[in-house]
């Protein structure tokens, strides 16, 4: 932070004190915004005066202020507007207040709780550990299906309930019984002279078996005391006339019921400074990120000899694991959950009753297309920009028919060239287009919101309280079009600001019906309306031009990709402390032609992936703290979204007086003075 801005931040108190220059950003904000958003007025329940100066503690509110300013949705039309230079200064002031300098190094790896294995991770781990394939975890209650990041590996969405634990013990015993004996590292007792197994020999055999098995099962070296604790189960059991084999199985089942198995536990080191996780913990992080299962032998070897801590070895292991077929699970889980296409398998989407073509095979292909696409990007180490637009697509015979392409033949997915710009890139994929439709019709609002949320990380705030729902079509001689109805809805000033951003993007996709098929006329035979007019002044029509609009914001889209994959890799929502990490990865990717493998390698090399820190007492208190039953503060504003890691400007550091460049801004390029 430059001295000038430090000074400014220090000066800008909760209220504008007399004697401050009216040109300073705080004064500008007061001049243009307080007429509605002061403590006296606080329209939309938004009190800027009380908010004071940009402060990381109030990040979520300030992000909303920034976004509304940046997109010129505020101040509303008809009110005095800041000129371009004033506009820039306010935004730069907010950025700096929240962000610190652009070139700051990542210093806080953030917090992540011990993650319970997801049901899928449990199954894959049991298969790799014991050689027993199957949906063992089906018996467990369904996982909360994703924490805040929207990924189901998120630590905060994975709970341990009594039901889970009750079933875990049974499932553990069952899989141990089914295990291939060699996977259990069983050591046979040494017979005595008479050929019998003495109790001592049996015990030593169990100890030796566990000493070999536990490090694999618990993904780390174990202590003799830990082995002995388990041996006690064996001894207690055999004392009850249980056979040696049964007692051993019970002991192994206990090892798999232990928190050491079902949680990914990471040991704490004293102090408040961040510290690197151990090589074994790093191996586990890497393995569950890329494979959703336990580390394999070479990875454990690199952990054991400590070489995994070397960046070059870590990168080499990452690339080795990416090349392994097991890495396909990462593409699948990551992109299906990011795009939301996984929900087609769990209840959203149209009904085949109205769309007979929507067969299970087509649905499966819709879910599969982005997975195949991302796999190809990773396998070929291609540019991630192709997520926005590219001149090819992968289709199987079902999708080829759906898209009216010629399938090159064969069973599975094959690459086809796109020449007309109608397909190619995520927004044109049938799965995305279907998941953003209503049951039997398209919704420009849902699609526009999807683009803002999932590609531009610029989610519109929730609708204001008690918003009037879209009114019924006006009765009249001529049927009102959807656009006309939406425009009528937007005439309500409380709706305008957001819908001006949302709707145009969605209209750009109106050439695709509710199943993502190409069409040239609209629902009910109405003429198709595919024109989008953005608040920035840009006008476009159809998907090809929409993709150009997105390409104008490709840095922003890339920021979203980085943020989402980092969130998936870390198993937590991103926080403001992650912004320097995201910026750094973005810079490395830009330098490297946005290559897909580079993204994965950079994430693995990043501070939050390799380090952790302890939760400090105040944070623990804050978590445990209960909000009083009667809310102390007035209801929060509709714009008050909790901390969202809104993307930092991706461009290199800029001098304080100039705000970040247009490419990083969402849906607006109207930035030049």
């Amino acid at each position, binding site marked *: 932070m430059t001295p000038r801005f430090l000074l400014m931040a220090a000066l800008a108190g909760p209220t504008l004190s007399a004697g401050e220059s009216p040109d300073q950003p705080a004064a500008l904000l007061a001049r243009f915004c307080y007429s509605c958003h002061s403590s006296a007025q606080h329209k939309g329940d938004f009190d800027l005066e009380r908010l004071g100066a940009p402060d990381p503690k109030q990040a979520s509110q300030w992000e909303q202020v920034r976004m509304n300013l940046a997109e010129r949705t505020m101040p509303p039309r008809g009110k005095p507007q800041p000129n371009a230079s004033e506009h820039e200064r306010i935004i730069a002031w907010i950025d700096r207040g929240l962000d610190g300098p652009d070139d700051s190094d990542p210093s806080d790896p953030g917090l992540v709780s011990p993650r319970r294995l997801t049901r899928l991770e449990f199954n894959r781990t049991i298969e790799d550990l014991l050689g027993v394939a199957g949906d063992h975890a089906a018996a467990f209650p369904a996982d909360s299906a994703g*924490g805040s*990041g929207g990924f189901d590996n998120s630590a905060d969405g994975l709970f341990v309930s009594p039901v889970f634990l*009750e079933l875990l013990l049974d499932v553990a015993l*069952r899989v141990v019984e089914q295990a291939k004996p060699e996977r259990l590292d069983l050591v046979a007792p040494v017979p005595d002279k008479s050929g019998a197994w003495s109790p001592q020999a049996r015990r030593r055999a169990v100890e030796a078996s566990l000493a070999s098995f536990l490090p694999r099962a618990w993904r780390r070296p174990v202590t003799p005391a830990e082995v002995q*604790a388990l041996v006690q189960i064996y001894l207690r059991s055999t004392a009850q006339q249980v056979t040696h084999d049964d007692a051993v199985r019970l002991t192994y089942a206990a090892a798999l019921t232990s928190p050491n198995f079902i949680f990914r536990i990471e040991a704490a080191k004293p102090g408040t400074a961040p510290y690197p996780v151990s090589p074994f913990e790093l191996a586990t992080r890497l393995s569950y990120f890329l494979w959703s299962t336990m580390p394999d032998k070479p990875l454990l070897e690199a952990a054991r000899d400590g070489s995994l801590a070397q960046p070059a070895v870590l990168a080499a292991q990452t690339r080795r694991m990416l090349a392994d077929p097991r890495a396909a699970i990462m593409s699948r889980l990551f992109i299906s959950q990011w795009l939301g296409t996984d929900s087609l398998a769990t209840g959203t989407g*149209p009904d085949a009753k109205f769309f007979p073509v929507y067969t299970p095979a087509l649905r499966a292909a819709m879910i599969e297309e982005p997975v195949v696409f991302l796999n190809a990007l990773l396998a070929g180490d291609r540019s991630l920009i192709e997520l926005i637009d590219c001149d090819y697509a992968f289709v199987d015979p079902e999708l080829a028919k759906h898209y009216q392409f010629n399938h090159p033949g064969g069973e599975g997915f094959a690459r086809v060239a796109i020449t007309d710009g109608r397909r190619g890139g995520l927004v044109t994929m049938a799965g995305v287009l279907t998941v953003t439709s209503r049951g039997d019709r398209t919704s420009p609002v849902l699609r526009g919101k999807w683009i803002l949320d999932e590609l531009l990380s610029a989610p519109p705030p929730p609708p204001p309280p008690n918003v*009037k729902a*879209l009114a019924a079509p006006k009765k009249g001689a001529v049927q009102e079009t959807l656009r006309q109805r939406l425009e009528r809805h937007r005439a309500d000033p409380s709706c305008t600001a957001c819908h001006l951003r949302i709707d145009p993007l969605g209209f750009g996709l109106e050439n695709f019906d509710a199943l993502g098929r190409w069409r040239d006329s609209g629902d009910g035979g109405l003429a198709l309306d595919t024109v989008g007019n953005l608040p920035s002044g840009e006008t476009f029509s159809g998907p090809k031009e929409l993709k150009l609009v997105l390409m104008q914001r490709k840095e922003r889209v890339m920021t979203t990709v980085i943020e989402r994959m980092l969130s998936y890799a870390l198993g937590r929502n991103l926080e403001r402390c992650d912004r320097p990490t995201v910026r750094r990865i973005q810079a490395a990717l830009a330098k490297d032609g946005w290559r897909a493998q580079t993204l994965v390698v950079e994430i693995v090399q990043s501070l939050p992936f390799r380090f952790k820190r302890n939760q400090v007492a105040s944070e623990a208190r804050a978590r445990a703290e209960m909000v009083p039953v009667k809310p102390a503060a007035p209801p929060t504003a509709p714009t008050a979204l909790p901390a969202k890691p809104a993307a930092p400007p991706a461009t290199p550091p800029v001098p304080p007086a100039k705000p970040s460049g247009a490419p990083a801004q969402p849906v607006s390029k109207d930035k030049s003075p």
Partner: protein
Amino acid sequence: MKPSWSISRRTLLRGFGVGMALPMLDAMTPLIGADPAPASRAATFAAPRFPVRMVMMNLPNGTYYQEWNPGPAGALGALKPMLEPLQPHTADLLLLTNLWNKSATADSIPHYANEGCLLTGTVVKKTEGTDVSVNGISMDQVAARCTGAVTRIPSLHLNMQKPVGGKDTGYARMYNNQLSWSSPTTPVPNETEPRRAFDRLFRTAGGPAAVRALSDRDRKSVLDYVLSDATALKGRVGLGDQRKLDEYLTAVRDVELQLERASAAASKERVIDPAMARATKEIAGALGNAGTVAGDSSFLANLGRDHTKRTRLMLDILALALWTDTTRVATFMFGNDRNNMNYSFIDGVKEDHHNLSHYGEGPDKLVQYRKICIWHSEQVAYLLGRMKTIKEANGASLLDNSMVFFGSALHDGNNHGKEDLPILLAGRGGGAIKPGRVIVNPKKTPLCNLYLAMLQTLGVQTEAFADSTRPLSEITTG
């Protein structure tokens, strides 16, 4: 009988040849008297002479209130269209007006702030995920801490929809995945598959059993081990991580308690009610026919026309669990609030529930929304009908001995109002409740007043719940 409940049930099953388990029941002689609740379970409990059961059911996404509105106080007459399927049960219904959950109004954003605290009566922490908290425990868990001490499982939690993840409007979506919270930060998971719910309750723990069933002693041995293991681990991890291990430790202790209770219960002589055995067998048979679709995601079966059938199967399982005194407390969700599930399994409905609940957009939406609301009432009517046909040892029906709550966290689907929630209570709570009436409360009467009265009817000796001001004793005084 062998001491382990899992073994004993399985052993008994063989006699039926259908892999069906026997309800654990003393021929409806409730296991009460000496309160086996351990000291840690705070609230005192003086159970009524015959066990009273409680079911909490949600109506997601509000209703079309103007066609729910029960009208003036007094005897319950003709029901409005949204409730019309319940007409045969008016003698068993209480319709309550002007109840509200004040905590739900702390944030103007609808759905998550409402449904998340429907049963807790506390303000849901506005967060997208890392520090989810409802700041209280749900009333069913307050009940379960008492009644759960005498039943095989403390409480049962069912949902016809899978959990969803991610975030929305500033909240973690998981707030809406369940009604029940055993601690401010611990949601109680739902069973969403009829087959698995049945297996867990009446067969062996899900899926094919281990070759050698675990004895109680084995279980105890393993539980003791993991308890000390987790305790030791706590010393090695950071402050924040200890919370997660505490969650694990709580679960271990709960399972240990359950085990103790099950052994205590198993040591008693059991008499098997043939009607119960028959009902159990019938459900087992129905599951065989209408089970999950092999190979396909089990949820996809929900999309089919048979969602109604599946819902009723789940309701049958619920009724059986109550009848057999497997549990006395249950939550049942028709789906998550703000759910986007396509309800096209109902004739004339083409879109998803939440979207249609904003019927202001057009008459075509309202037509569909009404159908969805009415469908929910039909399913409640089905459950009530089922519970009425079950006669219990005290001469009353299962419904007479129960309290079935059905209500929404939203006044109306379109505009989300949070006052005057649509709420009904069915059953006589073992004779304590006087149904067949409309109770018109003063405006903004705390919903928790109703909960308090229900808890007291169950025998939970408590004077307050969340923001209650007094028990809603009007339900008992006709």
